[in-house]
């Protein structure tokens, strides 16, 4: 599904700046992502991709600028906007390192996506209602993990854990996915399956996806739109086809040609 200009915005970023210890990491970043888009965030290490995603998720307050997700403020000029659990649940986060709870089984991990919406006695005792259990099984099937439900998360492979995190995000009913290099630590086959699963959630469920990637080939294969960060600023924002060698050289430096071909 290609988003039309009429789609409302899932994410609006205006004048976002951030620094760590006096070093500017992001400089007046502005962009908008429409609902249902799948956007790759690329750029060299240290360009500010992870910081940007953490700011979008509302994990840390920005120095300046605003971020709003589905019409609700996340960042308001240097402060985090207070958000209820239900509003936070609309944004799903995926990191490079899978963040499932290793000692719990996969089913429980995925069910925890819905824990914020349960009555206290249920959420404290782990008594999942029938509707949630059905949603968990459905999400596991969608991510190709139906036969792994009873496994301890720590015993799953990295790719399976990442897909488990995607299943949790389905149960959570997230509308926007922020993924920070979700496949950087995976072998090519596992990485491909995770990206395919992410793409399926984007196409079939209309989830808006912003995913930072190291591999330009993955951005080309899965994401119609690319935002490139370089030195804390947006160096390119447009269709992925527009990313020719000249542009890549501006973003990554002249060695990129050899690196991409290798």
């Amino acid at each position: 599904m290609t988003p039309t200009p009429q789609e409302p915005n899932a994410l609006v970023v205006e004048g976002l700046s951030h620094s760590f210890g006096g070093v500017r990491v992001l400089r007046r970043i502005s962009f908008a992502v429409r609902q249902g888009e799948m956007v790759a965030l690329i750029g060299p290490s240290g360009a500010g991709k992870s910081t940007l995603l953490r700011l979008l998720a509302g994990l840390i307050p920005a120095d300046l600028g605003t971020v709003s997700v589905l019409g609700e403020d996340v960042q308001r000029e240097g402060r985090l906007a207070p958000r209820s659990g239900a509003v936070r649940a609309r944004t799903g986060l995926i990191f490079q390192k899978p963040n499932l709870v290793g000692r719990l089984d996969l089913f429980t991990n995925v069910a925890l996506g819905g824990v914020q919406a349960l009555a206290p006695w249920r959420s404290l005792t782990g008594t999942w209602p029938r509707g949630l259990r059905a949603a968990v099984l459905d999400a596991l099937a969608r991510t190709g993990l139906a036969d792994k439900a009873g496994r301890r998360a720590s015993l799953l492979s990295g790719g399976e854990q990442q897909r488990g995190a995607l299943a949790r995000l389905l149960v959570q009913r997230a509308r926007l996915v922020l993924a920070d290099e979700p496949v950087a630590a995976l072998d090519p086959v596992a990485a491909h399956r995770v990206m395919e699963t992410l793409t399926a959630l984007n196409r079939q469920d209309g989830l808006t996806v912003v995913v930072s990637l190291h591999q330009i080939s993955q951005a080309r294969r899965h994401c119609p739109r690319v935002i490139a960060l370089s030195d804390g600023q947006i160096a390119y924002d447009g269709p992925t086809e527009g990313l020719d060698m000249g542009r890549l050289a501006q973003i990554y430096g002249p060695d990129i040609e050899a690196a991409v071909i290798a």
Partner: protein
Amino acid sequence: MPAAAAPLRTAGRRALDLLVWGGLALVLIVGFRGAEIWRVGDLASGARNMATLGAEFVRPDFSDLGLYLGQMVLTLEMALWGSVLALILAVPLGLAGARNLAPAWLQQPARRLLDVLRSVPDLVAGALFVAAIGLGPLAGVLALALNTGGVLGKLFAEAVEAVDPGPVEGLRATGAAPLLVALWAVIPQVAPLWVSYFLYRFESNARSATVLSLIGAGGIGQPLFDAINAFAFDKASAIVIVILAAVTGVDLASQWIRARLI
């Protein structure tokens, strides 16, 4: 950015090292007098006393074995309840005292409270409780509970501060409330360590409870103290053997539990 190569150890660093080691040596020399280390030779000159003592000890008198066993069981019961009450105290305080979980207004007071609990030796607390609620095992149990609660709370909080932040952030991002994040993402991670700490403290309480009965808190220490005061070293020997066997038994049991849980 290029940084000038810094020397590994500056003159200031070396002066500081000298100060620290010199200060440590000075403290040891001063303490030598206070702790009467110069009297260590008396061990040899008192050899005859030691020999008499030793001779009595190799002929233990088990005629009151029934009493000893009853008192030993009572001592272990005190240790068990002291440890369990400490656990009830330590779990909330350990979570509240963890920097990565609790806000500063809660974390700092929780840590200070744990410091206070820990700084009162159980013998002192026991004497106070004996004065407050009279002679008997409960005074010993409460004394153990307070001191052990302080120790366990601190260890628990430090274990929480060392958890992998990934799963915690992951669950927080689903919109789950802080209590649910603690329950589902933190406790599963720290559970093996907490159990291990608890078992160590239970072992150590089994020994402490013996000493506590000297101040009238009931248990095996009382007959031991009486026997020593009456120069009945054969009886004292029997009691010491009972204590050794019981403490060894507790150690073995908790080792077995620990091995199975982790």
